[in-house]
């Protein structure tokens, strides 16, 4: 399998007067369908790296390629389309839209890229809700669900457009251990089924050890890169 994602010699510097270098010359590539984890102490630059991969942030130096296309030089609208089609995000704080129901939240990425959801897509959203075990609460507003339910909704939302890459930043950061277990087994199942590349940030070594590849960042550098 080829590389879906490549970063070459990434630097990231914050600030103009007092410069803080968060990432030092990082080069990585990720195989299609792989399940990767990034670990590291807080401040090691893992979120910054993930945001750069996800095109939400731009590197100060270096190149980012998604599916062979260079993204760090793309225009804002191109990036929006790319994020919408090729990348699914799962954030630590769920970030569902509280004004919409769970099912509507799941459909949002589709609706951003297209005008009206077709029957197939609505069926797919329902299937995803089933898959994450939320068919009973799918018509609840996001605020009327537990943290675990919200995060599982966010997982379903990340999958609706069948993206090539799913980026998750501590997706279980504020969930209890049972929900954590739940969400991770979901993610693993997804990656097996759909040939989607997962990159997950976690501070939990136990979880990291169950992934195909562990990348550890330390002070903005790749400290360890271990394939299983």
């Amino acid at each position: 399998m080829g590389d879906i994602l490549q970063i070459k010699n990434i630097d990231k510097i914050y600030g103009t007067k007092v410069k803080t270098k968060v990432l030092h010359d990082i080069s990585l590539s990720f195989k299609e369908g792989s399940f990767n984890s990034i670990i590291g102490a807080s401040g090691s630059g893992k979120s910054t790296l993930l945001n750069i991969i996800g095109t939400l942030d731009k590197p100060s130096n270096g190149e980012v390629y998604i599916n062979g296309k260079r993204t760090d030089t793309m225009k804002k609208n191109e990036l929006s389309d790319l994020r919408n089609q090729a990348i699914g995000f799962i954030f630590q704080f769920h970030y569902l839209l509280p004004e919409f129901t769970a099912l509507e939240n799941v459909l949002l990425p589709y609706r951003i890229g297209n005008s009206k959801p077709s029957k197939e897509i609505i069926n797919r959203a329902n299937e995803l809700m089933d898959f994450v075990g939320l068919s009973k609460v799918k018509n609840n507003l996001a605020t009327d669900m537990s943290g675990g339910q919200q995060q599982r909704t966010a997982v379903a939302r990340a999958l609706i457009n069948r993206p090539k890459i799913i980026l998750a930043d501590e997706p279980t950061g504020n969930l209890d251990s049972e929900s954590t277990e739940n969400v991770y087994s979901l993610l693993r199942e997804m990656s097996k089924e759909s040939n989607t590349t997962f990159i997950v940030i976690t501070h939990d070594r136990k979880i990291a050890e169950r992934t195909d590849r562990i990348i550890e960042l330390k002070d903005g550098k790749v400290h360890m890169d271990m394939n299983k």
Partner: protein
Amino acid sequence: MRLPFKIAVRFLKSNKGQTILIALGIAVGVSVQIFIGSLIQGLQKDLVDTTIGNSSQITIKSDTEDGYITNYKEKLKEIEASDDRIKNLSVVVDGPALTQGGNKNYSLLIRGFNIEDSNKIYEITDRIYEGEKPRDKYDALIGKDLKEELGVKIGDTIDIVTNSGKSKEMMITGFFDLKVASINESWMITTLDTSQDLFAIQDKITSIEMQVSDVFESDTIADKIEKNLESNLEITNWKAQNEELLSGLNGQSVSSLMIQVFVMIAVVLGIASVLAITVIQKSKQLGILKAMGIKDRTASLIFLFEGLLLGIIGAILGVALGLLLSFLFTKFAVNPDGTPVVSLYIDYTFIAISTLIAISSAIVAALIPARRSSKLNPIEVIRNG
């Protein structure tokens, strides 16, 4: 287009209190605008109506030395053909005369009318509070004030002397009150042929009077008539004779417009500031939407739609409130006889324009938050949690 609209609706629904507050703000602005506009327009209509409603709006007099118009019937036809807004066309023979009461002399203005025609302008028959209109030759009506001066009653005769030296006995058939003291004191209304006879002018007349359906166009209509007629006639219109009234009306319109503009500016500032806060309130949602690939343009559309929706709701509420306010005003601000102090003029075009202005102001007000939301960088939200 559907998605930002839907999001806008949801955002508005989720903050019901805020939405109602802004919509009420717009509504109050619109209602004030409609109320003041209707009030001022009503006031002006009233004023114009009382000032010139019962007088000749365009008057044609002779420019010749003797001051008489010959062949007036032909001229009437020509005038009538000049513009279809001309109405209540009538002919008059005016002339001065004197009469005596006790030891005093009173100067009179003899006005010979075709009563039927002139009635349409002066509403003479409605203004006769005692007696009836002149029928036969040398019948005459006099005003309330002259009646009191002379101490006459119906059926009495008055001796008059015209400027040509002719003296005649006039028979009083009634008394009128045209609500203007100088007219009530001096006018003596009689028939056209009586007047022609008194001044010995046969089939000539002294002036042609008329009204027009659009009073503010009387100057242009007068110009049109002038082009059609021969040059020895002099045409005047009420606008030329009432410049002060016109400038007064103008001042009123301008000040009413100023009030309306400032009310609208206040409303726009209000909406803009509340919507700007909404952008901050919704920055998390905007951040995630942008991370999921919503384009900046679409994100700003959300707030433009919010402005549009608020504008529409506010305008509808405002029109209802404005009409209610106007209705209450005509019910409670009344004269002792029960008629409204100022009868409001409800102009639907004006209301439609106010509505459009309110809606577009709301959209303009939404431009600032729309710009802010377009500029919002998702990474700020994602990074700061």
